[in-house]
């Protein structure tokens, strides 16, 4: 699971109001090379919750992103785009879990696939 996915997911258990961002429990993180595509990154930039991405990348062992939401003008900087690219697309949570911040429910991540399906009593 890449951090782009993490940035989009929340806990949707019935009754949970604030299910985002999911806390990452990382057991195994791998880095996989992805083709650099500035257009895609610019497309995604405005849709990202920046704080969640910066925090998540720190937990995954990459602390190069600024904490504050950067000004969109940084999108012209190749250096910034490379960092953004690495954090968003190249860090993979291979094994671990995503934990609901409100209830503590663990959504397991195996072989890189988050399992977001709810139990019968959670829907």
């Amino acid at each position, binding site marked *: 699971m890449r951090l*782009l*996915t993490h940035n989009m997911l929340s806990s949707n258990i019935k009754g949970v109001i604030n*299910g985002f961002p999911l806390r990452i429990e990382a057991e195994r993180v791998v880095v996989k090379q992805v083709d650099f595509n500035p257009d895609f990154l610019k497309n995604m930039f405005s849709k990202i919750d920046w704080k969640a991405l910066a925090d998540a990348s720190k937990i995954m062992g990459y602390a190069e992103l600024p904490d504050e939401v950067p000004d969109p003008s940084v999108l012209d900087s190749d250096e910034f785009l490379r960092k953004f690219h690495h954090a968003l697309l190249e860090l993979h949570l291979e094994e671990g879990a995503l934990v609901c911040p409100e209830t503590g429910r663990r959504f397991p991540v195996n*072989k890189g*696939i988050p399992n*977001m399906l*709810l139990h*019968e009593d959670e829907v």
Partner: protein
Amino acid sequence: MWYLCVFYHRLLDYRKPEFESLADLFGAFQDEDPTTSHALEWKLPHHHHPDSPFHFVNLPNEDIARNIANRSILVKGLYEIWGQGSSYEELKEAINSYPDDRKLPYLTSDSTFRIIVDSFGKAISFKDQTARIHGMSYIPFQGRVELRNPEHKFWLIETDDYEANNGLPPVVDKTIFFGREVGAADRKLLPTYQLKSRTYLGPTAMDAEVAFLMANQAQAMPGKLVYDPFVGTGSILVAAAHFGAMTMGADIDIRVVRDGRGPDCNVWSNFKQYGLQMPVSLLRADNNLPPWRPGLKEVFDAIICDPPYGVRAGGRKSGGRKLLKGVVGPYTVPDDKRTGHIPSTAAYCLAECVHDLLDLAAKMLVMGGRLVYFYPVLRDSDSLDVEFPKHPCFKLVASCEQMLSYRYSRILLTMVKIAPYTDEIAEAARVQHLEFKENHMKWMEEGNLHAAVFSPDFPAVDDRDNKCKDPKKKYRGKYV
């Protein structure tokens, strides 16, 4: 400028919509007011049936024409016509009167060319082909003939004048076209991506040709993010990834998305096999209860999918109840059994599935983004005026029928998002959907479609009177 567009004679309903989607993608409508309907100008050659493979189309310039034809799947060729006639004398006259400044740049001595003789509805022997090519010598070709990789390809295409016109109603006049090829579909993609070469397949994997058509309808291209909520083995996303889009897929069945059939036979390996960019993510999620964070919207550029109709595969959603013996609800999972618990799922009827899909698309697509999905239709006499699902955020731009059996067809719907999603719209859509479900989708409830498709006593078969009412032309079954 007008071009002759010759289509492959298959998937008839899909041809013009594919062409128009690509025309839109490559900027043919750029100068137009975005609120008007984006449609190209089409013209049929005289006496041709609308399902004829020959159409004239008006495009702004040759670059757009070439881009459309080269990316399409169903365009056999797009030609600048130098002349046409019902006999070779007429053709010669027409070509000779075609302006020299359009012809001479393609006839220079430093160029290479070839002439290809083609026909629709009949075969021309090799000897006759050669004779016809020699008959064109009144055109002042200066270049060198090269059969393998010529710079310019010229086509001499004959339509037939006798009755059996490949199943189409007969054309009265024989027409001969001569023109220069501007672009043509790369059908070599299809053997490369054909399903039998795919390592990981499911029972409902999407045929490569149709998957490419879906990706074209969705205007997949580099920099865009395409989502499939019923991803299965990823056969639709493979086509989108081929066109350079980033892809994302979800499925409720974790065995399909996570495990596949081993480390080298899973959804990832299907992308690796063709050297495509891996999906941005695959996850297990239920489209009935999507796990997207609140406030996340307008993130996907296109949503493409083949929802489960309950004919070959049925839909499932969360919330099944397998009560243990002696337990009287509500169902709870004991705390010590929560880890590794496998939740049961409930049947997910198509009506609900389509509603969830439209709601998801209305929220998650960018403005102008496209929702492309298949929708099943029973081919009995009652459902002639098929109502398609509607949503206030969407405009339906294309519906293409593919007949699957005598009893049912699937229709590829292409919808474009034209209005932003708000709570009021979501509510209005829900009301509209309930009404739609009440009036048009009774047969879509759990199991009904399956029963109608597979039941032995299909009314239209028994009832002889109904047969003549069948509006679908018989010849279409042969090709679509």
